């Protein structure tokens, strides 16, 4: 496979700023970021360094003011809102910090959402959702409400929802911040296991150094830029422990 084919996500010269005049805040400036197919890459850095903004750009929910964004060979910066919506529907899976499970729906109905958005029939969506719920260890809990589950179980539901439509790009925003150490480790183990595929890329934004060891590479951000990319996560993890 050529180097170009190996690239899952690439941003070049991306600028994003909010506000104007004296209140102008630059979130990303000339940001260069690359993620490869088959890898789990983490975006780390202090609060306000632009991690979430970069994640939004990669997810197609935020359009950069300058620069290019390429995800699995498609230029997001050239797409209109309708095309971006269709792109997200097909290519992206999301795991959010606060789970964002709809409390009035059952567990399986929450997992069905991405499939139903794609137009998959209700029965088929339920069938596929039950399969993935079994994979995340929630067989038997499918008809309960999310609020009846523990934090770790809710995040498993969120992972099932993110992967049920088999998206090539999985975006995780602080997936362990609401979980204790052991549960966080279990969740990351699951993310790595379920998402491990030569055609899938996982981008994780996190503050939680305890999960750095699950990354293939770690990109550190500072002041809206990628300051360095570490190929051996253990080195950066030991810095935080040290």
């Amino acid at each position, binding site marked *: 496979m050529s180097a170009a084919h190996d690239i899952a996500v690439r941003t070049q010269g991306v600028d994003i700023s909010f506000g104007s005049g004296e209140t102008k805040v630059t979130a990303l400036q000339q940001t260069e970021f690359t993620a490869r197919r088959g890898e789990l890459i983490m975006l780390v850095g202090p609060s306000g360094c632009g991690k979430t903004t970069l994640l939004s750009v990669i997810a197609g929910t935020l359009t950069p003011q300058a620069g290019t964004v390429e995800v699995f060979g498609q230029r997001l910066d050239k797409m209109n809102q309708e095309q971006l919506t269709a792109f997200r529907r097909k290519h992206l899976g999301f795991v959010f910090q606060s789970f964002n499970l709809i409390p*009035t729906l059952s567990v399986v109905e929450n997992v069905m959402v991405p499939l139903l958005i794609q137009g998959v029939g209700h029965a088929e969506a339920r069938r596929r959702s039950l399969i993935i719920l079994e994979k995340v260890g929630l067989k038997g809990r499918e008809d309960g409400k999310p609020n009846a589950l523990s934090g770790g179980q809710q995040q498993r539901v969120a992972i099932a929802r993110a992967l049920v439509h088999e998206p090539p790009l999985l975006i995780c925003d*602080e997936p362990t911040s609401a979980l204790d150490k052991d549960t966080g480790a279990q969740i990351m183990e699951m993310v790595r296991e379920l998402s491990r595929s030569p055609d899938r890329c996982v981008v994780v934004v996190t503050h939680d150094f305890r999960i750095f060891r699950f990354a293939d590479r770690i990109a550190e951000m500072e002041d809206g830029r990628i300051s360095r990319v570490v190929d051996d996560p253990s080195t950066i993890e030991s810095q935080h422990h040290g």
Partner: protein
Amino acid sequence: MFRLALNMLFGDRAKLAMLLCGLAFSALLMAQQTSVFFGIMSWTYTPVVNIRAHVWVSDPMVEQANDAKPMRDTELGRVRSVDGVAWAAPLHTSFLQARMVDGNFKLITLVGIDADTFAGAPAELSQGRIEDLRLPNTVIVDEWGAQLMGKTVKGADGKMHTVALKPGDVFEINDIEARIVGICKVRRAFTGGPFVYSTYDRAKTYTLGARRTLSFMLVEPNAGVTPSELCERIERDTGLKAWTSDTVIWDWSDRSLARNTFWWFWKNTGIPFSFGTAVALGLFVGIAVSGQTFYSFVLENLKYFAAIKAMGASMRVLAGMLVIQAVTAGLIGFGLGAGMAQAIGRVMIEKGMPPFVMFPQILFATLMLTMGISIVSAIIGIIKVSRVDAATVFRG
């Protein structure tokens, strides 16, 4: 997604209950108040319903059915001579005081009908025979009047009870005896007074020989002549005013006495304003409560809608979800409100007060207005969801 939208709606029971309360209350107020309004307005043209005739003829200055301007008896001959008239009968109506046996006075509507043909007689008697009206000093009283003018007696339980009048009982009109020979079933009048039927000639006696006693003439057209055509001929040949008697509210003609009575009361009383205010209030309360509740429902679910939007749901799908939720709530709210209005109506009809007429059109209009409230609520929600940034899902 629409099934999930409904599950989202029904999953939040407290919010749903609030939403349904607002919509149901609004629908109830609109349907119930409008039905009472039309009930009261239908009472205004009660004489046309009770006194059945194809054509009514009156003094040219008469504006409505309760507004009798007496004519000379000779007018009857002029009307009978008009081409196309099969027969014409005199009718007297007037408001008089009746003196009960216990000395109490009650306001009554005296109706004097032709003793030969009984044209204008009540359609149904629950007691007695119409022919007995030909006996001296006899009257027929309606059921409401029999109850209203009844005797108050002390019961075995020590409490006072009203015993309805019955055939054989006697009261007085202008000091002249009125012996009851029958009880009839007729629709109640706007004025609230009971109907007392006598013959036309005896009515003259009860009014103490008033110079003019011919209030209306009841006319039957010849075969092949429509009431409208006959009205035109009578007006052309006699200079009197002629009316048709159609009472179907959505199909009555310009010449209808009922229609003209309805609109007279509409223009000259505060009834439409009073009920219109209540209906408008119901609408505004419905919009305010439902709009506010639905808006807060949308606000509470906004982060989930943002998440669904981030996952790739188009605005069309999200708008569809909100419309389905609002329309479903609207339909249930309408059903509850209209059902309660019907139940209240049943009780009202049994008690006879206040009058209650729920046309299918009222239900349809209430449904449309309730759906309008729901659609407005949905639009408010759609605007809010359309403005939410999908990127907010990454902001914790």
